[in-house]
Structure formats: C-alpha cells, structure tokens
C-alpha cells in the first residue's frame, strides 16, 4: 500500500500545485488587464479558465479515488479533504478572474475612465494573500496561515473605501455609471479573491492543526 498511496498523494500534491500556479497566473493577468486595458484579455482568460475547470474535476476525482481506495486517516485524510476544498476555492478564484477580465474589458470600452489609485493597492494585497496562503499550504505553515486570515480586514477596509469612492464618482458623473458599475463589480470580486485566500489559509490551519477555525464569530 504505502508506495502506491504515497505516489497517489504525491500526484495529488503536484496537481493541486499546478492548479494553484495556473490560477495565480490567471488572476494576475486579469488584474493586470485592469491597469493596461487589453480588450482581448477577457477571451484569453476565459479560455484558460477552462483549463482550471479541468484541473478542478481532475483533482476532485483523484481525491475521491484516494478516499475510496486507500482510506486515508489522520494527516492524510485532512490533506485530501483540504485539497478538495482548496481546489474548489481556486476554481472560484479563476471564475472571478474571468469576471474581472470581463469587467475590465467593459471599463476599457469607456476610454478615459481613471482607476482609483487604491484599487491597485487592494488587488496587490488580495493577490499577495492568495499567494501567501498557497505558500502556507505548501510549507504547511499554520502560523503564516493564521496571519493571512488577519489581513483580510485590511482588504475589507480598502473595499469599503473604494466603494464609497465609486459611489461618489457615479453621483457626480452619471455618464460614468457604466464603467463605475464595472469597477464596483471588480472591487467586489477582488474582495472575494481575498475571502477565498482566507478560506485557503483556514484550510491550511485545519490541515496542520486539525482545528477548524472557519467562522471565527463562533469561537469568540
């Protein structure tokens, strides 16, 4: 058993890492598109989302296969469960990337719409959270993971501020309602990317410490 099982677990690990890097690239490209406004980007990102979807299905199949054939327990069981969850999160992040790319295409249509400066701060923060959470997963570092969960608050703050800004713009310049609405969506999406990163970090904590820290309200 061991060799087969260890092999399977390795494959699984390799696959989830591939998926991680694909999704990271994807979301980076999508966010880049915000700043440099490439209209064909949406098309491209959407295509590559298909790849992520395939990874998602593939990893889920692998996880179920491992559960059925090797009956993992302890650490291994947690790892399989966590990989399934992370894959689902990443798949959603990829979907968000597609949405962001679409929105930024929408924004680009409107020519001289200026992006709020703090948007790039927010996206950077969210993407770095995502990256760090993946790193924490690779390193099985639950301390780092817990730190990531804290950083979500900063993103939430930026989110609120940016939305206020958008509202102001819309009120002031009704002709910019459409790009603003796109921007609004983008902001919400980025915020959700950060949420997903937080989820991944929480999963990492579970993987390492066998403790579920989701829904922190419950533990207060």
């Amino acid at each position, binding site marked *: *058993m*061991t060799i087969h*099982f260890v092999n399977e677990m390795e494959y699984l690990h390799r696959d989830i890492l591939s998926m991680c890097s694909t999704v990271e690239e994807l979301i980076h490209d999508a966010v880049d598109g915000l700043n440099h406004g490439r209209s064909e980007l949406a098309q491209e990102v959407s295509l590559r989302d298909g790849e992520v979807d395939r990874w998602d299905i593939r990893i889920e199949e692998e996880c179920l296969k491992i559960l059925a054939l090797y*009956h*993992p*327990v*302890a*650490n*291994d*069981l*947690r790892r399989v469960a966590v990989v399934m969850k992370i894959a689902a999160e990443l798949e959603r992040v990829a979907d968000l990337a597609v949405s962001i790319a679409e929105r930024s295409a929408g924004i680009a249509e409107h020519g001289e719409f200026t992006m709020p400066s703090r948007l790039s701060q927010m996206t950077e923060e969210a993407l770095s959270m995502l990256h760090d959470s993946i790193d924490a997963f690779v390193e099985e570092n639950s301390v780092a993971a817990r730190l990531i969960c804290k950083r979500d608050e900063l993103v939430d703050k930026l989110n609120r501020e940016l939305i206020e800004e958008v509202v102001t713009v819309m009120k002031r310049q009704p002709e910019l309602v459409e790009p603003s609405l796109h921007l609004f969506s983008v902001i919400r999406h980025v915020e959700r990317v950060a949420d997903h990163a937080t989820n991944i970090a929480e999963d990492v904590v*579970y993987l390492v*410490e*066998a*403790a*579920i*820290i989701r829904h922190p309200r*419950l*533990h207060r």
Partner: protein
Amino acid sequence: MPAITSSSVPPSVAGVDRNLDMSAHPAAIQVNGLDFYYSEHQVLFNVSLTVPERSVTALIGPSGCGKSTFLRTLNRMNDLIEGSRCVGQILVEGQNIMDPAVDVVLLRKHVGMVFQKSTPFPKSIFDNVAYGPRVAGETNRSVLADLVESCLKKAALWDEVKDRLTKSAMALSGGQQQRLCIARTLATNPRIILMDEPASALDPASTDRIENLIGELCANYTIVIVTHNMQQASRVSHQTAFFYKGVLVETGPTMKIFTGPSEKKTEDYITGRFG
C-alpha cells in the same frame, strides 16, 4: 478546538454514545504503572490506562506489542502461564486485583473474556450458556432457562437457535459460535468484557454482526477489545489505546486518534506507514 470532536455547539441531535464524554464516566478499570514479564522477558512497560465504564476501549498496535498480554492481566488469565510476573496496580472498580487475597475465580466471573477463536464447549447450546451459572452453583432449571434465554437475546442469537437449544454448539457457524461465546460470558453476569480479536477469524458478514453486538452491549457493559484491524477499532470503540513494543504510546478518544493523533508513531501506524 480539537478537530472533529463533538464540541460543536448545536444542542445534541445525535445519539448519546456518539459523543460520549468519557471523562464524565467513572472508571471501570484503572491501570497504573503496569510492568509485565514472561519469565525474564519484559513485555509491558509502565502502562497506565483508564477504562471508563460502559464504553468500548480498543487496543491496537503491531503484532507482539503486548496487547493480548495486557488484556489478560485484567482478569489475571496470565496467572495460568508459569513464570509470568506482573508489577504495578490494576484497579477494577476500585479494588486492586493484584492483591493476593483476591479470588481469581470471582474476579473472572466479574471480568468476562471472549477469545479470538470461538471456543464453544462440546455440549449443547443450552449447556454452554448455562455453564457459568452452573459452576457457580445455580441448579434451578427454570432460573437457568430464563438466564439462557435472556443472554442469548442480548447476544442477538436467540432467534437463530431457540429451536435447537439442546443441539450441539459445535454445529453452529463460526459467527454464531462467537456470539454464543459472548452469550456464555454474559451469563456469568460480568460488568466488564474483554475481547481478544473476537472477529479476526470471521468473514465480513459475521464480523459485522459482532461489531453491531458490541455497539449494543456497551450500553450495559464495559468492553475492552484487542484488534489488528484498524477499521474495526475505529468503528466500534469510544476510546483507542495504541501499544508499541510494550509501551502505551497514546490513548484518547477514537476520533482523535484516527484524525489527529498527537504522536508521530501512532499516526504512522494508523496510516499504515510502519516498518
């Protein structure tokens, strides 16, 4: 917060024993610093373990690690092996059973035992179950009949054998024989039942019945079970103790041992990475 244990908040929907809080139960057996020797060969090292009342405790560990030996100290079956020696304290319901004044015959009635291989006596089914009460002096036929019936019922065997109580017990199938042995043990009115790999010689279907039976019996009896089968340990027990080379490495709620063991050795063992 521990991982998958039961401290989640919603009020209990589940059955009682799922999340049995072991520490709340009084201890049926308490072993303190037990060493055990076969002649000069020490096989148990400073084992301390508390078995709560009306729970199932599984002993797991690789072959030869001393599980059976430990189990057999609990009703002093090891006395039958010459040259064996036991140091430490074993309290069964508060009494030290290592006391020389202890009468092993009474002790063994109180702490029943079921073995790996089913061992029906070559007598009728009735006589098998009635054996314990009879040696204890019970002769009243109707009392015995009632007792046999109730024990066979508890062992989920009554329906299968009620029409052939006077037939030889050897004609039963392996799984039935094993349940008969459980019934026979119940007839001595024990409070604690020790089981040494009770299902390892059975096919899955019979194993299943035995496991279910254990699940039912633990409502009234304290059960300690040795098993090689990790899945079995996980399925039937509330508490699991992992032995390795005569040392009790880790003990805790079964869920804990099976999802988040604290010792690396335990984890390696239950995930099958040993050797």
